[in-house]
């Protein structure tokens, strides 16, 4: 009795010690994340006040950049290490809560034509990025990340896929950086091209929603053209976002199967073991929202909690990324990303123009 009591004391002491151990690192992640949010707001406000033509750099990029600068210029003390490692927990927590922001029923709002375009876009993007990645001999998981990021919804999809396929931090960092950099460029190029082609609001909104990867940039690119185009862009982007669960699920199964080189005696049990359970949490939360379990304000709160969790994740991604490791990869991933994005933008433009001619959007 006495020994079991002392053992439980030792266990609880160990847990308390562990909680204390992770605290400095978690505070560092939170500090970097919050600094990123402040920077986003401050820089954008300053640029607007001084009429600068300055790309809207999101907190995501700031958090990764701050983390990268710290990890590549300073030697991070050991006291922060175990806390920094918790970023994977924040990642998965963020993904489960993200389910609140991806309602499958939203796809129906777009109607048949738009939905068909989304499906074609995702299929073409996945195939194109995979093809380009193989031509440039990128690592298979980096190809998957770039393909998922460019076909569905940029950063969220890469973050979701990273956990699901257990990809390298450097790979996801590279893919996120490429998608964000190209998304910022799209803010300027998409409206300019559309004006040149005299596209109508619906066609352009669809193109922005299909062709620009990150949701914020897609929304902004649409709104830069017109208010009506902005609304259509959000709808088309939502349809793409709704597919995140299915595509990441498919990739998770693909990689789980690929990782089993030895004889598989019980494939179902193996898949269950390898399958990232947080995706089920993601789908469950999405389903709860679909059944109107939460009010609109509550859904908003869940979405914001997801963003806070991701904020710590982004800081961790930057902190865990080392330029020396990245330089071994070279510029090929970025070139593949850029080439792929340009081709996808052309393909989706062709799709939208074709749909406009056939159905009169």
């Amino acid at each position: 009795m006495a020994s079991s009591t002392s053992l439980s004391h030792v266990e609880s002491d160990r847990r308390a010690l562990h909680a204390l151990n992770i605290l400095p690192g978690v505070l560092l992640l939170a500090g970097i994340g919050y600094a990123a949010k402040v920077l986003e707001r401050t820089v954008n406000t300053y640029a607007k006040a001084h009429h600068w033509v300055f790309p809207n750099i999101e907190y995501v990029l700031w958090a990764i950049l701050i983390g990268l600068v710290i990890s590549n210029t300073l030697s991070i003390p050991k006291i922060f290490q175990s806390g920094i490692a918790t970023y994977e927990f924040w990642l998965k927590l963020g993904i489960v809560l993200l389910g609140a922001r991806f309602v499958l029923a939203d796809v129906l709002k777009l109607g048949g034509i738009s939905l068909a375009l989304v499906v074609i876009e995702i299929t073409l993007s996945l195939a194109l990025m995979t093809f380009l990645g193989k031509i440039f001999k990128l690592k298979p998981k980096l190809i998957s990340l770039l393909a998922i990021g460019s076909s569905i919804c940029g950063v969220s999809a890469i973050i979701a896929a990273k956990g699901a396929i257990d990809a390298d931090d450097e790979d996801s960092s590279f893919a996120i950086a490429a998608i964000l950099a190209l998304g910022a460029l799209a803010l300027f190029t998409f409206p300019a091209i559309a004006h040149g082609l005299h596209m109508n609001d619906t066609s352009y909104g669809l193109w922005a929603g299909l062709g620009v990867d990150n949701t914020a940039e897609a929304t902004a690119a649409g709104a830069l053209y017109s208010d009506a185009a902005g609304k259509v862009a959000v709808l088309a982007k939502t349809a793409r976002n709704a597919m995140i669960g299915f595509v990441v699920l498919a990739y998770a199964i693909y990689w789980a199967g690929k990782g089993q080189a030895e004889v598989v005696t019980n494939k179902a049990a193996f898949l269950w073991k390898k399958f990232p359970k947080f995706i089920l949490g993601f789908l469950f939360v999405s389903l709860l929202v679909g059944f109107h379990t939460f009010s609109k304000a509550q859904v908003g709160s869940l979405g914001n909690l997801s963003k806070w969790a991701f904020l710590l994740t982004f800081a961790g991604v930057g902190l865990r990324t080392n330029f020396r490791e990245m330089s071994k990869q070279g510029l090929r991933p970025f070139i593949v990303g850029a080439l792929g994005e340009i081709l996808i933008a052309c393909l989706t433009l062709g799709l939208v123009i074709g749909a406009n001619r056939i159905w009169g959007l």
Partner: protein
Amino acid sequence: MSTDRSTNTSKSALLSLDGWAVVVALALALVVKLDWLKNVPW
């Protein structure tokens, strides 16, 4: 490579990460549903 390192680290730090993420997320969802946590800002 670094994923392996981070996974190992986090596995030793937080057992069954997926499970904890789902449990904490559902607990947060419950807290929000019960209106114990309202209008989370961003």
